[in-house]
């Protein structure tokens, strides 16, 4: 096996992994703060991918630009979902919320199936087949741009949480629900805001992902699982963790696909999940409870 | 002198650097009622949790009926003969009152029919018999506390750990509970250790009181001695309590 091939595949996996990381970041924010097990995460991603496809087909809108309206729309959707459907159920047992979001996910996947049919779609941008070469390494242009965009968005979110008042308030709600209420924070509003932000991440990630992968409605559950694996491996509540987890999963998937077979790539992700859950449940960069 | 039923010897527990319990020692003789009092955060519930097996002490030993019990699982502690209630009551909300107590009774009586009869008897003793078919979630707080006690009693413990069972009760309800405990203690020799802030109950029931403050034992003795103890007055009771 030529070293160059391995290196290229690894690099491609790393870049894809950064987009995975952005998707997982959305979940980390949602699960980490609002404690909602967003079982519809992958389905939301798939919807975003279709949104990008539709916008391109209708308006020739480049996904990097479509990203903005899609993320905004997703923010609103996430806010409404949390405020309207999930907030009222906050006091219910954990598995009720879980099932609720699962039901929404089922409706989403199959709604997409009804609307678009099972065939794969993609976005044929002009630069889809271009690549950079750095020495012996060959990098797909789309992949590089997508990865850069993912990192930029993640960075922006990180700065938001660290330096803005709203961001700090959200972190307070995450750390201590009761305490936050006591000091007068409108926790429910911040929950909705947070879900909106998480959803916006997914919206953006979807627009980027559809440049790398063809979309079918059935991708949803797979991405949901992947997002959870990444968040658990990287560490709940850790934003760098989500990106790190994404990169790890991206690379392991790519290498597994290279050395074994394409379908075996998820097996490694699952094995990694099981190992992490057993031996380091707080993840690589997560905080121990 | 016979060995104490419960012997807590120099136990300590810290949480992330914060010392919750620091080298606390006390003994409880069989058939006595002993109270653990002190300000909030003094480490009383942490002591209970260590005795009941919910936490493992960082140092020290806990012996019950001669056997070491520090570090064993909570269900093993129950099997050894210690029952406990929780400060924030934990009823089995989806089950009826009777079923709640049956769960407790099943510890020593594996036949459901026998367990049911024993559970009925306990409910009657605690004044919950008419409510036995109601779901536990429908009970008022005082009744939930009684249920908590009934359930624990059903496991036929030799020693009962009561964590603030009088909190939120009206004086008449408190007196009723006190009567129940006194009855159980006098008729069946049940040993009781209680954490309490309601001094009315503490004074009425206890033979001995231990006072905790900032995780340390600052006073031990009979009720009369303790309420006059300067350190206790200083940190907890205040002048008016005497």
């Amino acid at each position, binding site marked *: 096996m030529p070293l160059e091939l391995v290196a290229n595949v690894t690099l491609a996996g790393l870049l894809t992994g950064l987009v995975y990381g952005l998707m997982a970041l959305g979940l980390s924010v949602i699960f980490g703060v609002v404690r909602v097990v967003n079982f519809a995460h992958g389905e939301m991603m798939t919807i975003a991918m279709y949104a990008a496809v539709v916008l391109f087909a209708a308006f020739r809108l480049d996904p990097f630009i479509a990203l903005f309206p899609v993320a905004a729309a997703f923010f609103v959707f996430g806010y409404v979902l949390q405020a309207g459907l999930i907030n009222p159920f906050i006091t219910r047992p954990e598995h009720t919320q879980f099932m609720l979001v699962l039901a929404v996910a089922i*409706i989403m996947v199959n709604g997409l199936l009804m609307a678009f049919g099972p065939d794969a779609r993609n976005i044929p941008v002009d630069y889809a087949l271009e690549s950079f070469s750095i020495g012996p390494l060959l990098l797909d242009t789309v992949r590089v741009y997508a990865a850069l965009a993912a990192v930029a968005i993640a960075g922006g979110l990180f700065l938001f949480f660290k330096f803005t008042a709203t961001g700090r308030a959200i972190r307070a709600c995450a750390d201590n629900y009761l305490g936050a209420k006591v000091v007068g924070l409108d926790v429910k509003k911040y929950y909705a805001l947070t879900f909106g932000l998480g959803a916006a991440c997914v919206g953006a990630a979807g627009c980027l992902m559809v440049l790398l992968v063809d979309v079918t409605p059935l991708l949803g559950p797979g991405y949901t699982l992947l997002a959870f694996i990444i968040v658990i491996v990287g560490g709940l509540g850790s934003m760098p963790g989500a990106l790190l987890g994404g990169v790890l999963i991206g690379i392991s998937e790519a290498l597994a696909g290279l050395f074994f077979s394409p379908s075996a790539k998820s097996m490694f992700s699952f094995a990694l999940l099981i190992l992490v859950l057993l031996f380091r449940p707080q993840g690589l960069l997560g905080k121990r409870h | 002198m016979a060995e104490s039923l419960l012997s807590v010897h120099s136990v300590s527990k810290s949480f992330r650097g914060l010392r919750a319990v620091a080298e606390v020692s006390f003994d409880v003789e069989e058939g006595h009622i002993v109270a653990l009092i002190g300000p909030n955060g003094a480490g009383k519930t942490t002591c209970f949790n260590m005795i009941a097996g919910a936490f493992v002490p960082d140092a020290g030993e806990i012996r019950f009926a001669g056997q070491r019990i520090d570090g064993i699982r909570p269900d093993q502690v129950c099997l050894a003969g210690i029952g406990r209630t929780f400060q924030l009551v934990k009823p089995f909300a989806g089950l009826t009152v009777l079923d709640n107590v049956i769960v407790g009774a099943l510890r020593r009586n594996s036949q459901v029919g026998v367990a049911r009869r024993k559970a009925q008897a306990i409910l009657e003793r605690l004044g919950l018999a008419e409510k036995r078919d109601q779901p536990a979630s429908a009970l008022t707080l005082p009744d939930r506390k009684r249920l908590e006690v009934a359930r624990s009693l059903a496991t036929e413990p030799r020693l009962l750990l009561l964590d603030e069972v009088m909190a939120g009760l009206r004086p008449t309800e408190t007196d009723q509970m006190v009567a129940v405990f006194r009855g159980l203690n006098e008729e069946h020799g049940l040993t009781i250790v209680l954490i309490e802030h309601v001094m009315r109950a503490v004074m009425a029931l206890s033979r001995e009181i231990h006072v905790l403050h900032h995780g340390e034992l600052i006073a031990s003795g009979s009720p009369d001695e303790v309420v006059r103890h300067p350190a206790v007055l200083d940190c907890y009771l205040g002048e008016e309590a005497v």
Partner: protein
Amino acid sequence: MKALIAATPKRALVLMLVLAVVLLTLPAFANAYILSVAVLILYFAYLGQAWNVMMGFCGQLSLGHSLYVGIGAYVSAALFVHFGIPPWLGIWASVLACMAAGAAIGVLAFRFGIGGVYFALLTIAFAEFTRIGFDHLDWVGGSGGFFLPVTQREFNDVLALRGSPAMFYYVMLALTAAAFAFCTWLLRTRIGYYWQAIREDPDAAQALGINTFRYKMLAVVVSAGMSAFAGVFFAFYYNNLFPEQIFSMSRSIEIILGPIIGGTGTLFGPILGAVVLTVLADGITELMAVFGWEIPGVKQVFYGTCMLVVIVFLPNGIWPTLARRLGLEHREEGHHNG
């Protein structure tokens, strides 16, 4: 048994008697299509009850239950195709295999204190892992599928699971009835009480002397073992097995829909849920066929909507409310989980 009958309201007894008569004589007056729908209803009613043991009784959420159905199916199918072992023997290997799988998941999860959502994710991961694994297992056909030889028979051979649709119907009916009796009995034993205690509050359960690890393991193993029967039935009824199909997440979700809509933790919930869902879903498919629409995904959207509606408005499922309205509740002292 006598006490049970005495405690049940007359209405309920009459209803159950009528139901029993209908169920026992169904093949006599139903056409092939209705019979096949009935088999499907019973299949999901059975699996729903198996899942309910773990979740409804003991509170452990499994979202990867298709794992056990798949293992049950493949083990006895493989034994039959490769070694000629008939299903009535092969089933025991299936049950053991499923129990082992359940035990493995249980030990890994419970020893390490994994519960709730993380446990559910673990069950999904195991099911998916196995699905992909079987895709590569050529000994049982891999992704191309595993096929059981079907021979024409004039007579029904229950032990070999070869025969008419009516035979399969009765087999499934017997299984579902047995599961119902088993679950009813379980709930009234110490095991049933302890499971429910763990479901309601594991810490309080421990304080009452319950070894939660042991009882959670028992729930998982029993649930897995029960599911094996459904897997074997599936293999010999449909005669083809595809990993993508039988281990898929969609199957796992179908399994849990009945109990959720009917009511987890109750005895009739999973059965009622299976009836409601299958009948309505089939109704929708038929209706759409009338209009000439063949849209994939409609049935699942319907399932999802049902689930959503039930969780929002009837969080305990349809059965508890229905039972109350129809006056079918047990009057028995204490335990009333019907």
